[in-house]
């Protein structure tokens, strides 16, 4: 297929066929992970900068592994101890990196719109969004779709229940778009204070009772609850959250028999998820981590094709 994307800012402009193609390629990339020499020369000579303004070991390491396995040259530029601390703007940092010859910039930033802003400012380098504020985290959604696809031959018509803090979650936003594009029936649940006011855009239904949302689901997706949300008064206590919305065995038992349990990590045990569920047979949480590398390899491979 003709691959038209050179950047990934969000999944809202991706077609189902494109996601399927990327997943197919990711499958072949994952085979590389099992080899004694986990490296191929596909992106030899490409310079990729991981520009992380927020601490995120998981996503950064996952991107870094993917880049290294494709033989790209990798530079990690983090906000602490760099020019950012000296007041350099994102624009100047980006231009500096581009002048140094970066072919691609993977960016994680606390501000919504940082990735699309970078894309507008850069002339040549591709931009991959590794999370911009609460807006989007498209590679997480792709790896989640990939993980789910390994267990279901088609995602069309599957029910996925996303439970937790939707309003502050870039993972939820990208996943709602991604799983809807794949033809899933996406439902969400969580306290109303953690829900965005408008869900019609995503084609997603809200259930105030998580049991209603999880009932009959093929995938139960739990989101991380950040402690500061409780401090902001969005719910009274973590304990109450767990009691009302936490995923314990009882809640999970309402889902389909072999429903997958997913979580973007890192998990808060006994806040959004019980250990028996997180570590149970239906959990694919660690598989998601492994998928991340393969999916990011496929993404970089497809988007960084030569002649730009």
């Amino acid at each position, binding site marked *: 297929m003709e691959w038209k994307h050179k950047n990934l800012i969000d999944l809202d402009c991706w077609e189902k066929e494109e996601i399927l193609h990327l997943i197919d390629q990711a499958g072949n990339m994952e085979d590389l992970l099992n080899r004694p020499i986990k490296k191929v020369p596909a992106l030899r000579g490409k310079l990729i900068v991981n520009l992380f303004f927020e601490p995120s070991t998981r996503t950064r390491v996952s991107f870094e592994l993917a880049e290294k396995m494709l033989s790209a040259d990798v530079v990690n530029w983090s906000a602490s101890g760099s020019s950012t601390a000296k007041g350099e703007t994102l624009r100047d940092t980006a231009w500096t990196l581009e002048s140094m010859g970066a072919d691609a910039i993977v960016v994680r930033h606390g501000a919504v719109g940082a990735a699309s802003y970078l894309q507008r400012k850069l002339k040549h380098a591709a931009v991959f969004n590794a999370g911009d504020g609460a807006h989007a985290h498209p590679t997480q959604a792709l790896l989640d779709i990939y993980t789910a696809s390994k267990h279901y031959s088609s995602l069309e018509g599957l029910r996925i229940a996303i439970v937790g803090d939707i309003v502050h979650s870039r993972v939820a936003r990208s996943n709602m778009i991604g799983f809807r594009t794949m033809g899933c029936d996406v439902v969400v649940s969580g306290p109303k204070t953690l829900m965005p006011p408008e869900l019609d855009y995503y084609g997603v239904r809200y259930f105030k009772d998580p049991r209603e949302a999880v009932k009959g689901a093929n995938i139960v997706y739990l989101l991380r609850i950040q402690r500061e949300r409780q401090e902001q008064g969005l719910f009274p206590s973590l304990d109450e959250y767990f009691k009302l919305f936490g995923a314990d065995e009882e809640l999970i038992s309402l889902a389909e028999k072999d429903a997958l349990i997913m979580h973007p990590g890192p998990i808060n045990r006994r806040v959004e998820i019980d250990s028996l569920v997180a570590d149970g047979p239906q959990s694919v949480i660690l598989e998601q981590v492994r998928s991340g590398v393969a999916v990011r390899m496929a993404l970089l*491979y497809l988007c960084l094709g*030569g002649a730009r």
Partner: protein
Amino acid sequence: MKEKAKIMSDDEMERVLKRLALEILEKNKGMSNSLLVGIQRRGNYLANRLKQYMREMEQEKVITGVLDITLYRDDLSLLHDQPVVHSTGIPVDITGKNVILVDDVLYTGRTVRAALDALMDLGRPSSVQLCVLIDRGHRELPIHPDFVGKKIPTSKNEIVEVRVVELDGVDEVVICERGE
């Protein structure tokens, strides 16, 4: 693209492949320490064909694998779209084995170069041999086939197409003229 001439029919292809199978068996004294590795995608089908003929001749177990060399190509940064990556699957450890690489057409030699790199990342074979159905000349690298189905002099403006039943519905080899 215009088809110019058919240079091999299905009967002829079968005859040539049977001869190649025999030559490989002869040189390696059977297939007990050797395996056929087809280069994705058509080399894969030719390797399976060779395996079938070898078994008919010697009733011997023949191991085959497939190798995708896409990620090892040296022209990735020149292409506009990245070529599709196919799976690599070799069921045994190739270390210490004789690996017979099977491909449809040998041309510049760059695919074989990539295949050698890919193989070396998988293990350390005791030898690597090259079997091609068609050698059309114009080598750009010092690569020489060990087993050749047919040598065809071509011009650079031509394309040699090997068609197999599994993908194309017919076994044949044709020469086409590249469009302007």
